[in-house]
């Protein structure tokens, strides 16, 4: 899938001119709009309300319409109207999924892809074992990692000093230095500290119970995952100053030495 490179002498004549195009694969993550019934006024007003509440949520995001429960969408005209109404709201539907054969044909006449395969991410936050114990399913196309616009790793290379607060609001936080006592690390995702961790670390702060904290030397004042916390008083002395990971298991905050 890389750009074409001449390896064969027969291609030499052709390759003197630049290729008109190259092919690359790309994963994109789409937002799935799962319809729960007929598309009418209630649907559009609910959509408008959502746009008002989160005006940036849909910006630039490709949308896929899940029509499994919307059997009323049948004709090309239905799909054209739906796509037009969404475009008027600056939403861009690229295709449908879970349609019947008729719906798929009608949608493709209306310029929408009928997508197959792929999986939706779960509606609710996953349990920790979902993420760790999940065996790869070879029959399904693996999900793209996650929306790159929504998940951003924050990397800090300077020491995090007492009184400083570092917040990774879009994913993981990695500190390649020491974190002083009195400093605070907060992340929606995981926290990695490649240095002494002497301050406070709060991972999974918006409820991700699968978030973890890793550090080179655990000397922290407080460790918290998804709101469950332990202070240094509660740490088992055997983990102090060790390479440690913290995770939640059955609503208990566990600290393990990394082998």
């Amino acid at each position, binding site marked *: 899938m890389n750009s074409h490179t001449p390896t064969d002498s027969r291609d030499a004549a052709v390759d003197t001119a630049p290729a008109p195009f190259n092919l690359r694969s790309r994963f994109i993550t789409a937002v799935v709009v799962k319809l729960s019934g007929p598309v009418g006024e209630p649907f559009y007003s609910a959509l408008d309300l959502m746009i008002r509440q989160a005006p940036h949520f849909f910006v630039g995001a490709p949308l896929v319409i899940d029509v499994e429960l919307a059997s009323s969408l049948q004709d090309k005209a239905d799909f054209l109207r739906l796509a037009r109404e969404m475009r008027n709201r600056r939403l861009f539907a690229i295709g449908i999924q879970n349609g019947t054969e008729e719906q798929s044909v009608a949608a493709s006449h209306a310029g929408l892809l009928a997508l197959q395969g792929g999986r939706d991410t779960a509606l609710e936050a996953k349990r920790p074992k979902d993420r760790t114990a999940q065996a790869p399913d070879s029959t399904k196309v693996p999900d793209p990692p996650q929306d790159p616009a929504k998940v951003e790793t924050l990397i800090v290379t*300077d*020491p995090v000093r*007492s*009184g*400083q607060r570092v917040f990774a609001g879009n994913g993981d936080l990695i500190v390649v230095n*020491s974190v*002083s*006592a009195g400093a605070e690390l907060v992340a929606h995702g995981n926290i990695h500290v490649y240095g*002494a961790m002497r301050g406070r670390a709060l991972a999974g702060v918006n409820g991700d119970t699968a978030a973890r904290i890793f550090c080179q030397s655990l000397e922290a004042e407080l460790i918290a995952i998804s709101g469950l916390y332990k202070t240094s008083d509660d740490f088992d002395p055997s983990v102090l100053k060790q390479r440690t990971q913290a995770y939640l298991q059955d609503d208990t905050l566990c600290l393990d030495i990394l082998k």
Partner: protein
Amino acid sequence: MSKIIVVTSGKGGVGKTTSTAAIGAGLAMRGKSTCVIDFDVGLRNLDMIMGCERRVVFDFINVIQGEARLNQALIKDRRLENLSILPASQTRDKDALTKEGVEKVLNELREQFDYIVCDSPAGIERGAQLAMHFADEAIVVTNPEVSSVRDSDRVLGLLSSKTHRAETGQDPIKPHLLLTRYDTARVAKGEMMPLEDVLEILAIPLLGIVPESPAVLRASNVGTPVVLEGKSPAASAYEDAVSRLMGEQIEMRVQRPERPGLLSRLMRREA
């Protein structure tokens, strides 16, 4: 190119003013034209330590507020012709300091002096923040005990985030650690933090180790910077620190080293 150096610590009573006076005098002794500024508005001490309190007519705040010219407020030291003092006001408070005013005075001082040494007040409020705001380098004065080290760490965070260099994306302020009131005997007894522990937490280059010494208090009482008050372990430690500040490579000397190997560890840290 003149350099603005802030002497700061967060915690009070660790030796900022003593160190400002000693380093200012040390730089002047080495032929550098130097000005020391007292930012501790309302609790001025630097003029006393420098022995010029009776010569204060106008002060830093008068200059900021346009009530006096800078050269009217600057006091020339009687012992060192390269050294001047800009005293703080005792009757005002820190709110009289403005960022614009401080910048204007510092820019004017830059034209006259090689080194401008700012004596920060304790704490991390307005006075301390303005003292460090326009600095090029910082001397973080720390005592070998946990609360002083913690406060120094906090100050290092402010130096790297709340200063002019940080806000305008220039090279960060160069920090130096000056460990004061270091008593090897008490370190050996476990009453004070060892140097290695302080360096591990603060992780900045070491400028010097000033031993606990009666000479420091004696010098303060008579209003003389400790480097001008005869030979003492503290005076030589400050002289070494001044040399390192000027970029010389000097072996780190700890008075009364209590165990072998300490010196070699220090040298490794410095490299």
